[in-house]
């Protein structure tokens, strides 16, 4: 798994690539919670993410919870079809906003 981040004018974008499983999710947890702590608007870009397990989903849930507690905005974008199916089955779509790309997520934050 590889993580990078990018600062837009009104949001922080975290790019995650590779596999997000029980081995790699602690790393993302540390990274993402710290980003949510310091930025009110966070987008997680999954363009290059190939796999996500329950452990990875849990990290996103924790980040969303933390963001909500801080009255922040948290969104995901660019899910591959198989990943989108996991998110849909998990019920994430009713908890976390999912957008086609980072730009539309950013616009949704502004609207």
């Amino acid at each position, binding site marked *: 798994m590889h993580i990078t981040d990018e600062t837009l004018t009104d949001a922080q974008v975290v790019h995650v690539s590779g596999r997000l499983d029980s081995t790699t999710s602690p790393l993302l947890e540390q990274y993402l919670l710290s980003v949510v702590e310091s930025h009110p608007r966070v987008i997680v870009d999954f363009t290059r993410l190939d796999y996500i397990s*329950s*452990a990875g989903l849990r990290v996103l849930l924790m980040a969303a919870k933390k963001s909500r507690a801080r009255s922040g905005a948290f969104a995901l974008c660019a899910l591959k079809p198989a990943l989108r199916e*996991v998110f849909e*089955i998990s019920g994430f779509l009713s*908890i976390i906003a999912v957008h086609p790309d980072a730009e539309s997520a950013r616009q949704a934050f502004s609207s």
Partner: protein
Amino acid sequence: MLVDILASLFAGLGMFFIGVKLIGAHLKQMTGRRFRMLVMKGTAHPAAAALLGSLAGAITQSTNAVAFIMMNLATAGLIEARRAMPVVGWANVGTSALVMVATLDIHLFVLYLLGLVGMAYYFNIDKSTRYRHIAGALLGISVLFLGLEFIKNGAAPLKSMAEVRDFLALSGQSYVLLFLIGAVLTLLAQSSATVSVVAVAMTSVGLFTMDQTLMVIYGAGLGSAASLWLLTANLRGTPKQLALYQGLYKLVGVAAMLLLFALENGLDIPLIKALIQWLSNDISVQAAWVYLLFQLVSTLLLGIAGERATRLVERLSPPTQEETLARPQFIYEQALDDPDTALDLVRSEQQRQLGHLPDYLDEVREEGIHATPRPVLHGALISVNREIATFITELLDRNRDRDDLNRVIRAQARNSLLSDLLDSLNDYTDALRSLTPGSPLHERAARLSEALHLMLVTLAEAQASGESTDLDLLLGLTGDKAELMERLRAAPPAHESSGGHAMAARLAEQAVFFHATVLFERLVWLVRRYGLQLRPDLNATPESRP
């Protein structure tokens, strides 16, 4: 004449036992929740623990009852076992209160008290929620002392009977026999204080000499240890440590008192008997002092042993991490006597079951750990679940408090859902095992399993944290999936191969997948139902309840 004497003794003992039970039952009802809260604060300081233990022993008149309350609290994780140990030790000292009061001449007081309580009952005070326990405890005190009077009056003529004098002369020569009589009677009566009070009553009418009384009291101490040993034979780990501590307390005390007795009688060194003669001229008061000194010597010796005694019982019964999956770790029979703590124990036991739910998916998940074979896991969890169900049913039968009753009913509903979750998860995993690894439907089913795993983990976390935000997230995850499942069933992922044999296999896989999605829907519904059952208890978790 003998028939009259025996009838009087028998009736006296009967009234005495009724009195002890009434006092304990009503005072416990009055102090249950407050006592538990007091214990949690009181065990923080040794002096407070001493006061608390003495008070608890005086109120319940049973060190075993105090030991069991402490075991409940320690098992529920509300206090550390080693902090509860001094409370159990000092409860022994507290039980001396009854023995001391029994030596007072309160004949007229008891008659007036009984009259007053009788009048109060005539005016239906037992229907009053506010006063019924006070009236019940006072009735117990009256009946207890009236019973003692019967025993004293019945026993007084015994000493003039030749047969009794012969028996006492014979038993007086055999300290071992009297010691064993004290132990056996305590095993039957379940209280060394009770047996000691009767021994003191016998002494007061001149039926026992002081040496004979000492032997009965010391024997009662050993009987008390044996009775707790039998009652806690099925326990292990932390609660067993407290039983062992109480056993050690009694054994050390008995050994020390017997040694002092031997030194005093054999070498004429003035010790216990000299001390009690200095304290009082009245032989029955002297006998009562022996009981108190016995408890104080035990407390002193274990206080000196301090950390070594604690380490010894911890070594003899080390805390269990996962003694066995099939054994309940929190609930046990005696906990039913304290409904409030019993419910906390049920919650802890159910939390433990929730923690194991994700383990069912190990077989069908890429990241499964396979720590325990599923049949073993399922058999063990179902067995514990049934024990919880039985425990709750018994709690329901015994409970009269409306607030507690609502909590018990919710605990029962949760347990029923847990049972359904265990069976459905087992069926779900069975179904998925039939899918061909690597096939598109297998991969789709793997996504179902990851989602389900997340919901089960979130459920366990929601109950553990007791936070409404966690519960809201769980309810968000477990919304209605009917439409989504219909879509997944109707649009199977593309297959690479085709042909007759492949088609048959594909249809079989689709049937399995269909079954799995039905079970998945049911599991999501059960998780949601369980979450909804948590809502009313959110403000009443063990940590936050007043």
